[in-house]
């Protein structure tokens, strides 16, 4: 009774109010979301709504984006629910371009067979959007039970002739749904307006077979802004209509009435892909007059964005991981705007990306504050046109296109597509977060006077002073400014600059020392394991791989296991030098091996020398065969190592050293010259001589020195928030340098030794080093709901017709946490909100 009274009071209160009560959305594990135009009892006119598929409760929820409230059911105290077949996983809408309601479909897995007929069809469920009574009205078969729906896209039917800008206007009264099915087929369903009652009817058109004799699946679909093309991401080799195989994205030309005759072209991403989006982008330029906010003066261009398969990207591959940019004009990765890399640097996302979405249209009701500059013609003055507001933590700006990447961590990483990457929530250019050498710790010789220092270069030579003197700085505060870093290249990393230091991954590994009658002493880092098929070598280190940076002359420290009969001298800690690097031999050393020669170290500053008697024992008293032990391979000279980077090169005292991307086509040339660019190598292992090994090592380093970010800020003498600091303050750069995006080294320095008596003949203690910490300054901007959960679907929406304030352009992202998150990239993170 009390409950009834409360209910009546609530209903009565509703009747007295102008606004509808918030009844809660009551999602049930949302799996997808889309925007559609339709009619509900809430609004008699055609209006935009969000349709959220709920896999857990087998229904669609309808949200009104004007106020982010659920559309109510006739029962008032419940949100409207559109029941569907079990586990709806996809929802898609398509505009019929006639001002009427959109076609809206929902689909799920095939489900259990019909109990009477045994039939099991893949269907689209059509939802009535035109008569104010949202409901599922029919199921439309598009595939058999043996097929799986991989993606659905609602697309317009393009007219045959484009208008200005290469845009193909849609045919009024019709639309299509493209349903990507497993087995390399795209089912095409046409939606047409029924003149009698404004309803939508679905009919099957012919199917598009992808790849012909070499079928491939597409797992994500995206409509091109030109209204004609559709892009499909694929894990498979994309075979175009011309028979050319490509790794990347399929471009489907959807012009023509017979989908079976549509042509497909492969766009190269140099890696398989699993997510795709497209946008028409006006990109910034890099000029001296580059305006931080209105720097977009390139002509608009269509670009495709793809997520590469993680198996095929990374620092040992042709492309880094991140969001790849593809130019459909060239059919290849888009060019690097600075002309340095063979293609544009992928937009790096710190976690596993799940999906991508873009938005490239200025708000329908724009604001003057969000204008961007574009040329009136090719040589004419810049004029201002509406743009999209984009607000990372470093401040708002305007741009032509934005995007989001939903990460496996549930965060929504934002992209400024007009500036080639994610915004950063902290500055890469200004203190205190700028790209910099953050710290140097000198552990050269704690008990002595020997030091590693950085040369403070003198003034440039002049006729009056042709050989100016430089100064060796030896305190951390003085050493740091002598090093050079570059925003967008220098990572968050800890570096070791050391004398005879263990190479990355090669310290204290179980190994075998082979006494070979022909080769002498051979060391392989591997573990024997007896099997029925004989000895199997486990955990074989790829010593042959140039990626590890092992050089002839490097130090091998080894301690053999004590076994009966082995002289004591042989089981002491000893060492040898690398005399030769042997290629893999599957039976003996599957990762390659090192032929050892006697140690040659001179006494160090402490007067210590290695024990030559141990090596002599190995060489003279070991029996032929395999002997177990633990080994470390260290550099025989100076070396630079990064904790994540690995081997970074062999700097020499007093000689300028630059860890720098080679630029031009050098990376491709190195790749051609390197026979073993990846590990494990192909079978049989290609021969790789010293020249080849050098190319491989350079290639491995070059791939890790690629640019990973294009800074989006300005350095033109803008006062820093930090008192007393003006402009930018990048380590090693002059203050207030003008170029916000520049090409430069990851790390550059010239080190020296103090006292000068420390020489190759009288070296430092082994492993003497300085530890250098660099900070990238990059903190990719993201939005995230306060609760956890996994993001499932996303869609962009323009709220500007309904509001005068930000956020205007938003992305709605559905979460399994029974929530819909409104990510506003134009407002600060706190202004995004969660709908439940």
């Amino acid at each position, binding site marked *: 009774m009390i409950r009834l009274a409360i209910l009546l009071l609530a209903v009565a209160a509703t009747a007295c109010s102008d606004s509808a009560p918030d009844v809660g959305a009551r999602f049930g*594990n949302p*799996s997808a979301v889309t925007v559609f135009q339709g009619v509900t009892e809430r609004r008699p006119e055609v209006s935009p709504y969000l349709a959220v598929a709920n896999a*857990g409760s087998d229904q669609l929820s309808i949200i009104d984006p004007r106020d982010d409230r659920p559309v109510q059911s006739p029962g008032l105290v419940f949100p409207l629910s559109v029941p569907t077949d*079990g*586990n709806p996983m996809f929802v898609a809408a398509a505009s019929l371009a006639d001002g009427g309601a959109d076609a809206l479909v929902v689909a799920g*897995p*095939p*489900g*259990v*067979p*019909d*109990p009477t007929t045994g039939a099991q069809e*893949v269907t689209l469920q059509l939802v009535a959007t035109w008569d104010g009574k949202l409901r599922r009205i029919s199921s439309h078969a598009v595939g*058999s*039970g*043996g*097929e*799986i*729906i*991989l993606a659905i896209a609602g697309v317009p039917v393009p007219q045959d002739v484009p208008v200005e800008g290469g845009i193909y206007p849609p045919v009024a009264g019709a639309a299509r749904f493209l349903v990507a099915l*497993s087995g390399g087929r795209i089912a095409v369903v046409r939606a047409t307006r029924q003149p009698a009652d404004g309803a939508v009817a679905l009919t099957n058109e012919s199917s598009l077979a992808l790849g012909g004799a070499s079928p491939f*699946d597409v*797992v994500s679909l995206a409509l091109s802004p030109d209204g004609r093309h559709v892009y499909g991401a694929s*894990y498979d080799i994309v075979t175009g209509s011309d028979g050319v195989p490509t790794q990347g994205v399929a471009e489907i030309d959807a012009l023509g009435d017979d989908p079976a005759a549509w042509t497909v072209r492969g766009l190269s991403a140099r890696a398989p892909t699993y997510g795709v989006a497209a946008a028409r982008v006006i990109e910034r330029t890099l000029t001296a007059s580059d305006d931080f906010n209105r720097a977009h003066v390139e002509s608009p261009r269509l670009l495709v964005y793809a997520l590469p*398969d*993680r*198996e095929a990207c990374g620092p040992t591959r042709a492309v880094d991981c991140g969001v790849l940019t593809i130019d459909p004009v060239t059919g290849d990765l888009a060019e690097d705007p600075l002309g340095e890399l063979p293609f544009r640097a992928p937009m790096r996302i710190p*976690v*596993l990306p*799940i999906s991508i979405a873009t938005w490239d249209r200025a708000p329908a009701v724009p604001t003057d504050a969000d204008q961007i500059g574009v040329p009136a013609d090719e040589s004419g003055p810049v004029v201002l046109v509406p743009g999209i507001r984009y607000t990372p933590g470093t401040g708002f700006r305007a741009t032509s296109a934005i995007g989001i990447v939903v990460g*496996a*961590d*549930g965060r929504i990483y934002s992209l400024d597509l007009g500036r080639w990457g994610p915004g950063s929530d902290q500055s890469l250019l200004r203190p205190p977060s700028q790209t910099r050498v953050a710290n140097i710790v000198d552990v050269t010789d704690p008990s002595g006077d020997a030091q590693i220092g950085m040369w403070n270069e003198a003034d440039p030579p002049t006729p009056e002073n042709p050989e100016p003197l430089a100064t060796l700085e030896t305190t951390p505060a003085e050493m740091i400014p002598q090093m050079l870093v570059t925003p967008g290249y220098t990572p968050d990393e800890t570096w070791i600059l050391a004398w005879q230091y263990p190479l990355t*991954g090669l310290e204290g590994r179980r190994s075998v020392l082979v006494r070979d009658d022909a080769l002498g002493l051979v060391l392989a*880092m591997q*573990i024997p*394991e*007896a*099997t*029925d098929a004989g000895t199997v070598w*486990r*955990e*074989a*280190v*790829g010593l042959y*791989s140039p*990626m*590890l940076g092992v050089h002839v002359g490097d130090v091998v420290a080894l301690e053999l296991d004590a076994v009966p009969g082995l002289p004591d001298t042989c089981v002491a800690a000893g060492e040898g030098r690398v005399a030769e690097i042997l290629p893999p031999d599957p039976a003996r050393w599957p*990762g390659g091996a090192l032929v050892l020669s006697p140690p040659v170290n001179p006494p160090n500053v402490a007067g210590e020398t290695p024990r030559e008697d141990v090596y002599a024992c190995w060489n003279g008293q070991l029996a032929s065969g395999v002997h177990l032990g633990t080994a470390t391979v260290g550099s025989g000279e100076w070396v630079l190592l990064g904790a994540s980077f690995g081997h970074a090169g062999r700097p020499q005292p007093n000689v300028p050293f630059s860890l720098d991307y080679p630029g031009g086509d050098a990376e491709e040339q190195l790749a051609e010259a390197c026979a073993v660019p990846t*590990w*494990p190598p192909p079978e049989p292992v290609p021969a790789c001589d010293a020249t080849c090994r050098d190319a491989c090592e350079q290639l491995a380093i070059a791939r890790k020195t690629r640019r990973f970010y294009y800074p989006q800020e300005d350095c033109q003498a803008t006062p820093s928030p930090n008192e007393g600091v003006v402009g930018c303050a990048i380590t090693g750069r002059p203050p207030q340098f003008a170029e916000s995006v520049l090409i430069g080294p990851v790390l550059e320095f010239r080190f020296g030794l103090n006292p000068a008596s420390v020489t190759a003949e009288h070296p430092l203690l082994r492993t003497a080093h300085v530890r250098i910490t660099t900070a990238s300054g990059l903190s990719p901007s993201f939005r995230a709901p*306060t*609760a*956890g*959960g*996994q993001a499932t679907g996303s869609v962009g929406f323009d709220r500007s017709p309904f509001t005068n304030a930000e956020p205007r352009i938003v992305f709605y992202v559905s*979460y*399994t*946490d*029974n929530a819909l998150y409104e990510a506003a990239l134009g407002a600060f993170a706190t202004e995004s909100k969660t709908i439940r």
Partner: protein
Amino acid sequence: LTLRSPRRYRSPPLRTFAPTVLALALLAGCGDPVSENRSPLDRIYFPTGLTVAPRPGGGGDVLYVVNSNFDLGYVPEEGGSVLVIDPEASIEPAGGGLAPAAVVGGIRIPSYGGEIAIAHPGLPGCEGLTASTAIVPVRYTNETYLLDVEPDGALRCNGNCRVPAQAREEDPFGVTVACRTSATGTRHSAFVTHLKATPVTGAPAGEGFITEIDLDTHRAAAPFNLGVAPTSQVAFDPTRGLVFASPATGTPGYAPIRWWRPAGVNPGGVVEYSLADVNAFVPSSIVRGMALSSDRTRLYVTADVYDAVLAATTGSVRFTGGVLLVFDITVSVVGDAALRASRAVAIGIGLGPIAVVPRPGKRDLLVFPDISGNEVHLYDDEAGALVTSFGRNPVTGRPLIREPFALAPQALAGGAWRVWIASFRDATITAIDIDDPNVPGAARIGKRIGNSE
């Protein structure tokens, strides 16, 4: 699943089954109070373990079902059981319905049994085994049962079948067979996980232990310590000689998958292991299931995601989503195995263990339960997409498999596969028939086996 129950002697779900328990208690009062209240050997009762293995004497496969006595409806010491069921002889009645379980045999064990594995000569590396052995960890008595498998598939304790815990490891649960050849000869082993460890002063809370049991001698080696986070499931990769262990659910904020080479374990029990924290890929996640792909190039992990903010502010863990994670097992240039996240698929809440169905030339099909959603999902790793979900009766809307948990794949003739799924709540075992693994969308609910009345 039984983690949700309080330890021993007290069980909230008892109220749900109060009438049954009451009736049993009344029946028990009519006879021997102990023997009459032992677990029956013809009934499925809160199953937690399930596997399929061939009869040693030939004649097809049999199902092994571990009944947990989750509600302690029977005396704890003899309340659990392992039933051996002939699935082919379990005939559905005319007109359909539940097929009464054709029980080949059964053996009582203490309550809270865990997973089950059968070591038999058909497994890789186990060719030298002269007999088949069923390995069943039992949490109630902190021991692992090694039961001889008779030619007809029935189980027998030969008097040396109970392997107690060695030290501080508690609550044995997961198990895998790991037959291999090492420098000291062929080893027929099983690895057993432990959901708990006895806390001691000076040691970190929530340590993870693994026990290796020699199947020839029925002796356990000293358990080795895998650091913080107890262990839940375990899998063996005979190709690389690696063992993988998943973390148990009791370590919010830290969910390390750990792997090691058993050949590298020294006699002192110290093992050099590698780990990958699933929280680094999907924050605020708790691992529920883990399985190796059939080609051992991938590791599949199911995890539930919880509200980290709520957990941090109130201490309560509320699950907000579930995810299937696909890791590539890569080998670095220095020879180390590493996990690299390849895909993350958001699927429901309350996910559980994973059954792998291999397909020649293609990546696997995965079957895994959504325990709280009363659904079973079928995922195609080749397509990278969810194929279908088996949840409710399309006509009545009633859940088909309430609280699905334990799974067991079975290879059939002609390349077909069947995945058996035990319903924890309904005490039934349901088959999902995949006639052609290359047409996963045609998979369907098949035979359902339950208790005979």
